[in-house]
């Protein structure tokens, strides 16, 4: 054992690459700064969206009206909760991960169009503020689906128009970001890196970007017509003047069902990275996972009308039921591949891994309930009930949000150069996991018993289950603050991560933490199989990397000590 007393290379580079908070508050074209800007902005909106739903659950503690004065206020609360969570939290958060990681994973210096990248980000804060400012102008109250005539004839406030314009701007931002991802992935991979040597997170972002560029413009067309109905006196969705409300539903869901995959496929990518790295196992079925992302992207365009089984022509129900069930096949391929990945692995129950496993278990429940509502007879029974609310929260919280947590715990060391506190991480996980389950699982029962969604007043027999849901939701809300606290606390705790604390083979770890301005020192050399753990070649690659970049956590220590025992790693590689 040798004792190193000089400043460690990893520590030194960390100090050199450290950015001030003010760097994140201004226009920058560095993809890493933009990535963090996306993430922090999204987190702020996550807290806002979460606060809104706490009010919703407070109202639903009892069957009568307690907190809100009338149904309109309640409608405004859940409308803004859903919109903020979808368009200002999950989608931009994943864009943040993509921005930070894609160039690094590909061995590029930046995104293909850095200026466009910054523009895409800076469209988000004003759009979000515009949407929230609707509070002062008669807030949007037609749900995130904005179905006419609720969003036209029955939403007199200008807030509904502001909502539609904000969604338009957010959609444009999303398209610009996706175009940038597509170009970067196609053209800027490291020399010799083929598509099937890319990390699976990159595949997730690629499939997501393809959906965004094809589906989001469709919504833009529909929103244009909706705005014209509201401000220019047209009547495209006004039945009284020959318009068709179902037309909006078709246009909206042609975008918004694929949007579900926009919200979850980057999470699939994160999960692939986390499960493989923290179980020291090669991905089981790399190509199957990669290609199933494309299959989901394609099939996602064929299922939109399953949201309209109750209003659709009966003859169209069976075809859409079949396509909706078929889409479970590529999703199932992924799930079995992830189980195969961790099977027999040297599993480390880190916070990232716990959230990864949490995703796997909860998303499966969301997937199964998805197959249930894809069946027409069952859907007719539970349509617009709490069963549906439960289903999509198992997908979007149990899937997307848990994946975001897993990703943050996994890549926080790369982004900040410091380890996140594992003890707090585990406390965060267990409270979140249990509170999440008791928040959303009883909703299945409420739905099957017939409790409709989007109501402030409900039948007294539903109160017990609603009380369980509301109390669990409050706990779930509080658990978020453990996470937020940990984000800040770990920055002050300064437990140096070093370049590659998880000993991972993908390229983002083959550089300092945080990475230097142009990401790498010289041309990065990528490892041919990004998940080839346990091989002699992988061991040698990591050894070489450590010699060049310096040791990593747990071999690095707090900066004040700056001395470390550099024993050979016993990681099981």
């Amino acid at each position, binding site marked *: 054992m040798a004792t190193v007393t000089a400043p460690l290379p990893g520590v030194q580079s960390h100090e050199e690459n450290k950015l001030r908070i003010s760097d994140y508050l201004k226009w920058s074209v560095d993809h890493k700064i933009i990535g963090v800007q996306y993430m922090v902005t999204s987190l702020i909106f996550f807290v806002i969206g979460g606060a809104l739903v706490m009010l919703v659950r407070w109202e639903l503690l009892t069957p009568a009206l307690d907190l809100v004065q009338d149904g309109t206020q309640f409608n405004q609360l859940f409308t803004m909760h859903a919109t903020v969570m979808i368009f200002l939290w999950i989608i931009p958060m994943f864009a943040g991960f993509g921005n930070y990681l894609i160039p690094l994973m590909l061995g590029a210096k930046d995104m*293909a*169009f850095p200026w466009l990248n910054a523009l895409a980000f800076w469209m988000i804060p004003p759009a979000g503020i515009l949407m929230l400012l609707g509070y002062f102008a008669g807030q949007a109250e037609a749900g995130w689906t904005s179905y006419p005539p609720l969003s036209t004839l029955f939403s007199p406030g200008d807030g509904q128009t502001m909502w539609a314009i904000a969604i338009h701007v957010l959609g444009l931002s999303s*398209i610009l970001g*996706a*175009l*940038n991802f*597509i*170009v970067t992935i*196609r*053209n*800027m991979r490291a020399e010799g890196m083929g598509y099937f040597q890319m990390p699976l997170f990159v595949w997730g972002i690629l499939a997501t970007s393809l959906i965004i*560029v*094809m*589906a*989001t*413009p*469709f919504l*833009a*067309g*529909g929103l*244009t*017509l909706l705005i*014209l109905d509201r401000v220019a006196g*047209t*009547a*495209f969705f006004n039945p009284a*003047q*020959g*318009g*068709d409300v179902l*037309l909006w539903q*078709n*246009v909206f869901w042609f975008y918004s069902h694929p949007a579900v995959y926009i919200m979850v496929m980057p999470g699939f990518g994160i999960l692939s990275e986390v499960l493989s790295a923290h179980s020291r196992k090669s991905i089981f079925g790399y190509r199957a996972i990669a290609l199933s992302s494309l299959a989901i992207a394609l099939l996602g365009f064929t299922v939109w009308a399953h949201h309209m089984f109750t209003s659709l022509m009966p003859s169209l129900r069976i075809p859409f039921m079949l396509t909706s069930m078929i889409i479970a096949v590529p999703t199932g391929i992924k799930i079995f591949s992830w189980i195969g990945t961790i099977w027999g692995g040297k599993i480390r129950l880190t916070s990232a891994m716990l959230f990864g496993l949490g995703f796997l278990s909860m998303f499966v429940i969301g997937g199964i309930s998805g197959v249930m509502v894809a069946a027409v007879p069952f859907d007719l029974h539970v349509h617009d009930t709490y069963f549906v609310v439960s289903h999509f929260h198992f997908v979007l919280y149990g899937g997307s949000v848990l994946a975001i947590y897993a990703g943050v715990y996994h890549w926080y060391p790369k982004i900040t150069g410091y380890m996140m506190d594992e003890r707090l991480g585990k406390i965060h996980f267990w409270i979140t996991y249990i509170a999440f389950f008791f928040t959303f699982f009883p909703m299945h029962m409420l739905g099957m018993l017939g409790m409709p969604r989007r109501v402030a007043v409900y039948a007294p027999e539903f109160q017990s289950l609603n009380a369980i849901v509301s109390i669990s939701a409050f706990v779930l809300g509080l658990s978020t603050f453990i996470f937020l606290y940990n984000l800040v606390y770990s920055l002050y705790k300064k437990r140096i991560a070093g370049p590659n604390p998880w000993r991972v083979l993908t390229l983002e770890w083959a550089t300092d933490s945080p990475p230097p301005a142009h990401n790498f020192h010289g041309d990065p050399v990528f490892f041919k199989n990004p998940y080839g753990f346990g091989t002699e070649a992988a061991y040698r690659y990591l050894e070489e990397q450590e010699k060049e970049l310096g040791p990593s956590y747990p071999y690095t220590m707090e900066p004040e000590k700056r001395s470390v025992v550099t024993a050979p790693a016993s990681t099981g590689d």
Partner: protein
Amino acid sequence: MTREELLALKNKRTLVTAFQISWIMVFVCLIVVCLQIRGTVSTALPALNAVDFGVPLLATLAIIASGVTAWKAEAAIRRDDRAGFMNLWRLTIALSGSFLAIMIGVFFFNPYLESGLYGQIFRVMIGYHAIHAMAIGWWLVQVYLNARSGMYSARAYWGVEAGARLWYFVIVAWLMFYVVLYLM
């Protein structure tokens, strides 16, 4: 060109192609809405007379011709034939301007003004396309202004290429609309 310059050019070309494939979906959306409205409209739409049919046809021929001249102009600048490029680009702008002028006229004077919902979607489609034609048409003008100061050559013609590619997008979008609005 250096390796970085080549990569930058490749990126720009990929971006424009991806944008074209993406943004055409807005036009597809409007076509779907138009077909839906036409399928459900309760009263018969007015028949088109020779002027109502002929004028948009003329505009369509003009915009197709502008695509050909833009393509030939780009080929000319690639050969470093700057005089040829200028002549062809001027022609492109003239043809594009004619198309736009006619379509602005169609927006304000068309047989569907009293046709309720169909008249509304008709005007939205014409207007939406015209906005794109105006924005990208301005690019064509800007390229012309740049070219007058000698900005483009056989080594540096991305501005021309991008303008032409975006104008092809306007042409394709219009042809889709034309088929739906006048031939179906």
